């Protein structure tokens, strides 16, 4: 059973092709990552899923049926462009948005209070939105998208601008939602944040899908061809050649992508001769590296 089925969707704005022949499915109860650089067509795709715009061609099915506005109350949406009524009090605002999603005012009030307690902002319920810090507004918006207990949750850059404590707080909430069988779509260009959360991904660039599938499968394609090294001393062992395909050097820490057919042991020997090695680990490439590689190739 798929919560979302997108097949051969195309959307253009005048001459600009925002989304082109895009096809992917989101399994019910899974966490799906819609990834891509800025302007890749992520937001355009999301807007079509919730009927803000309509595709020029192709089909979008939601909860097994062609898109219908009636299913909107079962969807929660946290847009990338955050916005709340600045002069409105937090609780009034949440109740209003809850009512728009078909909730009873009293229920919305109760749930909003519960959520604010859970996210540690209960004392702000009576404050106007404009009096709150950016991070708190972010949390309010987060609550607004979850208040009506949606079955399908769309989060566009959910962690943008949050400190590590709050990021963890929200991450836990989302893991809970997943445990309760909700389907979640993440849209982001910050790969590191979703890597640990997503079951499957779709990587899009310039409106087209360039890589998609279950995360494990995607990573397996690229094999264990990466090495993380912590070192002291000179980094001159890092020379592109037979062993080193490319690298990302942070000074005392480096991530090396091995050249095709290279042996990690050889690299360790060379490195140990020239500097002190405190950590040497062979790993899967991170999503970010895959992303850079695929998008770079795609753009070239």
């Amino acid at each position, binding site marked *: 059973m798929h919560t979302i089925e997108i097949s051969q969707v195309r959307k253009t704005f*005048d001459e600009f092709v925002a989304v082109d022949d895009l096809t992917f499915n989101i399994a019910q109860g899974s966490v799906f990552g819609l990834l891509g650089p800025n302007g890749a067509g992520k937001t355009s795709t999301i807007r079509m899923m*919730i009927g*803000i715009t*309509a595709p020029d061609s192709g089909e979008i099915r939601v909860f097994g049926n062609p898109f219908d*506005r009636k299913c*909107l*109350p079962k*969807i929660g*949406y946290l*847009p990338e*462009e*955050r*916005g*709340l*009524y*600045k*002069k*409105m009090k937090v609780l009034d605002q949440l109740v*209003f*948005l809850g*009512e*728009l*999603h078909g909730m009873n005012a009293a229920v919305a009030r109760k749930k909003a209070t519960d959520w604010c307690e859970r996210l540690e902002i209960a004392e702000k319920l009576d404050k106007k939105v404009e009096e709150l810090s950016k991070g708190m507004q972010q949390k309010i*918006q987060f609550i*607004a*998208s979850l208040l009506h207990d949606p079955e399908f949750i769309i989060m566009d850059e959910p962690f943008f601008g949050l400190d590590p404590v709050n990021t963890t707080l929200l991450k836990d909430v989302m893991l809970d939602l997943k445990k309760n069988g909700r389907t979640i779509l993440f849209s982001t260009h910050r790969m590191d944040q979703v890597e640990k959360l997503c079951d499957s991904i779709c990587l899009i660039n310039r409106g087209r899908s360039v890589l998609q599938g279950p995360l494990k499968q995607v990573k397996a394609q690229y094999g264990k061809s990466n090495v993380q090294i912590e070192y002291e001393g000179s980094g001159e062992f890092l020379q592109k050649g037979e062993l080193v395909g490319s690298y990302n050097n942070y000074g005392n820490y480096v991530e090396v992508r091995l050249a095709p057919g290279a042996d990690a042991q050889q690299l360790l020997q060379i490195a140990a001769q020239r500097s002190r090695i405190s950590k040497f680990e062979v790993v899967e490439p991170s999503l970010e590296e895959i992303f850079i590689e695929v998008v770079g190739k795609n753009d070239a």
Partner: protein
Amino acid sequence: MHNVWLIARREYLERVRTRSFMIMTVLTPVLMAGLMIGPGVLAERMSHHARHMVVVASDQQTGEIIKTQLLHADQQSRDNAEEAQKSSIKRSQAAASELTVDIDTDTSAGHRADLVQKLRSKELDGVVWASNAALQARKVPFITRNTSSFIANDEIQTSLNQSMTRRALQARGLSDQEIQNIFQPVKLDVQDASGNGAVNPQIVLVTSIVMVMILYMSVLMYGINVMRAVLEEKTSRIMEVMLSVAKAKEMLAGKILGVGAVGLTQIGIWAAVALVYIVPNAVAMRNQLKEVLSPGLLIWFAVFYLLGYALYSTMYAAIGSMVNSEQEAQQLQFVAIIPLIAALAVMVGVAQMPSSPLAIWCSMIPFTSPLIMFMRIAVQTPPLWQIGLSVALLVGTIYVLVLLCAKIYRVGILMYGKRPTLPEMVKWLKYA
């Protein structure tokens, strides 16, 4: 429909609760009352000392006649002022204070210098130099400190003229009673063709101008409020959250209804305050106002407020959705204000000649008709077919505008950055 209601309710409650709404609601009647009462109070203060005049005549009898005539004229003008206070909306004509008139038969130049001296030292307020020489020359000096005020100068002139006539009639041997009858004034009794007494035209004019001004202010103010509301949603970027559950059309409708209801509330409060102010102030005025402010006219007021507001707020909503900041909005909103200003410019002319071609045309053109047709109805009920045609044209225009503006709105609210050019907007209209 449920969404429209929720959005309208939010818009209404949020606005009615603001401090600026309360301040506007309270301050406007206070200011208006101040403008109406203030000048009267000031005038009363200024004329609140007893006045003292001297009539210098060659003989006692002439002096008596002029004195009687002056006192009589003064009494009459005070009666008029009192009457005016009751029947006029303004209270500027305050009743003057008591007048004393002395008679003096010393017409020597030396005595005149003495009197002028007394005038300078404020023992006297005016000297009428009605010596026989002056009367024969038919040029009577009136010496006063302030040549342009005191009792109106023409009042004294009238008194002198009447005194001369009276003296001449007495010389012809007419009795006092006969003379009295000659001076009995004739009053004009104005009626229309069906025999109804005319309502004070001043009240009709002032009332209708005030109502049209309120109409203009409300349409403009709440139209611009709609624009601000759209702009606020756009700049605070809440648009996208709203659009994920409500249609653009529902948002537009909710916004216009909510803000429009705020306008009605405010006008309602003002109307109530006005009635409360009028009741204890002038019973006569209220009676006359009742004839002007018929329930029918109040219904027309509501009709034209709603239609005018619908027309302009739709345009303003479209403008709000096109722009990204108040500054940009100001340039565009001016374009939408021009027809309203044009209506104001012809307003007084229309009030005076409600059946002129200009009045008829302006009451038909949908952008000026909310104000001008209402003005015509207030002053002199135009033919029913004209009212019907005007309302029909207005409703038709609103319908077309709503369709167009809803499209512009739908596209505009998600467009950030550059303001659209005219060709781009035409393209927006073509989007499905």
